[in-house]
């Protein structure tokens, strides 16, 4: 090797180091997102009055409840009764609570959860429920009846 060649080789070794240096490090980032579901009802109590015409029709006028669904997963909204009877002067079964969503026929409330609606993840979707009370001449003695056991549940898979 010539002297010039050796000199170049040495400079080549030195040059990159002298011109620039860099340091680096690596790290991992992680975030776990859980299934989050929020159900908000706009009313916690519904009051029903009765009229003779409603007794003849067999049910009260309906009252509406808005259920707001907020979730980052697919969801199912269900409704169920958690007590088999109303509190009142006479026996009145859970099935005398009637509900429907999106029109159509009313469904009698049951102690088994019934699906009201289902959907995709949403930042806020309103599901409107109409509730009414079945009236029976032969059973519903005068007085005040209360049923405090309507259970709404929002579930995600």
């Amino acid at each position, binding site marked *: 090797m010539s002297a010039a060649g050796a000199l170049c080789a040495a400079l080549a070794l030195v040059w990159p*180091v002298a011109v620039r240096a860099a340091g680096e490090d690596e790290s991992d980032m992680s975030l776990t997102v859980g299934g989050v579901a929020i159900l908000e009802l706009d009313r916690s109590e519904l009051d029903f009055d009765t009229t003779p015409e409603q007794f003849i029709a067999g049910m009260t006028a309906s009252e509406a409840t808005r259920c707001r669904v907020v979730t*980052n997963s697919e969801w199912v909204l269900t409704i169920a009764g958690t007590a088999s009877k109303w509190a009142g002067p006479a026996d009145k079964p859970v099935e005398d609570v009637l509900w429907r969503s999106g029109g159509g026929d009313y469904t009698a409330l049951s102690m088994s959860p019934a699906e009201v609606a289902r959907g995709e993840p949403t930042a806020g979707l309103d599901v409107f429920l109409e509730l009414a009370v079945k009236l029976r001449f032969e059973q519903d003695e005068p007085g005040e009846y209360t049923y405090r056991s309507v259970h709404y549940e929002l579930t995600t898979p």
Partner: protein
Amino acid sequence: MRCGAAIVIALGLACLAPLCALADTRVSANDLRFSAAGETEFRDGQALLSREPLDWESDTAWRLYVESLDLSLGLSRDGRYEKALADLQFRVSGDSQWWSLRTEPVFIAAGDAPGRGTLIVDWRMLLSWGRDRPGTYRARLRFTIEQP
């Protein structure tokens, strides 16, 4: 003789090489572990990881960068959603401007004076109800400190 002299010069330069490597730069970062995101984080629209230290050392002026080694933050548990890398953001603590991660170096900070120090960085993950399905989202990050 000429050849011998050249070898001596070359060896001398080789010995000097460490002295020529004046720029000694280092950066050290911790793993970033966000707490599990729940209702609070979704309501806020973000999960925060505040005041993470980033240690640096340099004997010259320096510039610090971060980049992602992954194209995205990965898939949701059900595989139906891929979280965008840009949802991971950082800022130097105290600054108002947030910067999104990319797959190319993103500038973090610079200094004119040599020395060592700790840069405090805030990290956040943007969250959206309609998008961010359950899962664990990840990325590998590379921090680089360079001379300007």
